[in-house]
């Protein structure tokens, strides 16, 4: 009995990132905007799990959540999906070239990830004839970077409840 409960707990925490991924995409909360600052949780979630536990967050799901985000926010289909996949790509590259994973390493490599993903976002919107608020995009990147350690701690806590 205890074993079964343990198995259910492992299974639940294994799929929790996936549930969270679709939940924030569908509810339109992938970017938390308080007016003073805004944080892109979508980027942090994908970067963290592709880097630390890629088996919990498939690339296909990331693509799908990007498409959902585009629909909910009214952006051209594929724009968010492409930028999220770029985050996943940089995270996958960092995973391949990094031996020891620490918060500081993750955090520093998150800078080029954000720059690259936002650049792709900007380019895709530019070619779709969408006006972009550059200042907002810049502020969002800064605060997403600043908030990374907090969410890193929370996601690490979730990972402690999983099997491996």
């Amino acid at each position: 009995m205890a074993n079964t409960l343990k198995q259910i707990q492992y299974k639940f925490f294994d799929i929790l990132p996936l549930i969270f991924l679709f939940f924030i995409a569908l509810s339109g909360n992938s970017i938390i905007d308080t007016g003073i600052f805004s944080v892109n949780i979508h980027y942090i979630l994908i970067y963290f799990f592709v880097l630390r536990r890629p088996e919990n967050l498939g690339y296909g799901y990331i693509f799908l959540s990007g498409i959902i985000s585009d629909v909910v926010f009214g952006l051209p289909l594929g724009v968010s999906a492409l930028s999220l996949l770029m985050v996943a790509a940089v995270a996958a590259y960092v995973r391949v070239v990094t031996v020891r994973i620490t918060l500081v390493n993750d955090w520093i490599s998150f800078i080029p990830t954000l720059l690259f993903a936002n650049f792709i976002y900007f380019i895709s919107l530019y070619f779709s004839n969408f006006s972009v608020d550059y200042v907002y995009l810049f502020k969002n990147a800064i605060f997403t970077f600043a908030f990374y350690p907090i969410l890193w701690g929370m996601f690490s806590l979730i990972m402690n409840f999983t099997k491996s």
Partner: protein
Amino acid sequence: MDTSREDVGIAIRSAFLKRGTQQRFSLFVLVILSILFIFLETIDSKPLNLLRSFVKDVVYRSAVVVSIPFEGISNFAGFFDEHINLHSNYKQLIEENKKLQDSLLEESFLQLENSQLRKLIDEQVKSSSNLVSARVIIDKQSPYLNSFVINIGNNKNIKNGMSVLDGKNFIGRIVDVNYFSSRVLLVTDLNSKIPAISNPKGIHAILSGHGTKEPTLDYLPKNHSIEDGDLIFTSGREGIFSPGIPIGKVKIFEDKIKVKLFSDLTQITFVNVNLSKAEKEE
């Protein structure tokens, strides 16, 4: 040097092309698929539009279900807030009621005068029955698009470009129509440009959104005399919207001519869509 270049190449190939453990697709395939999606968005064909409309309708309905907990929390917060401010709200309402009663008398006189003058110049008085009501189902403001989704679309003869009103006030226009839903681009959005006219001076301008609460008046004549408190209406120029729909009041701040909207865009649950454009097309 060559070895390190090779290492980078191997790492990139490994990250992009290889399917990781339990991954069904490689990143490369999905990136290509995303680019294809972006490209397809620029193509306007009936089967593609139908597919897009279906996908969007399904996502919107799912989003409504997923947003229920958030709505519950914000409703509770609103309920709590209302109770705390009950007394001050009551006082404010009494004052407003007095003012409204005064203005009602004045308005009825003005309406009578208006209809008589219209008759005098042989203009047909339009009825307001070409409005259709809708409920806002998703109002998640995107950082790049100030918009919301309403629960009517092609099924109620909604078309792109129709004006959307909160009560009698202009708040935006339809930019994307699906079968059961439509997207409304608000006047505050960066992509919104509305032909407007000031009252009482009758100066034409373009109302431009900036992603902030208050849009500004652009393309004004050089020596304009717009003042604080002037009223702003749709001008009806270029035949996009009906003329004379109230938008807001001028608020000059640091040499910028801002417009304080009559409607609070964060508090909208129901809207009216003006179908007159569709009628014109038909």
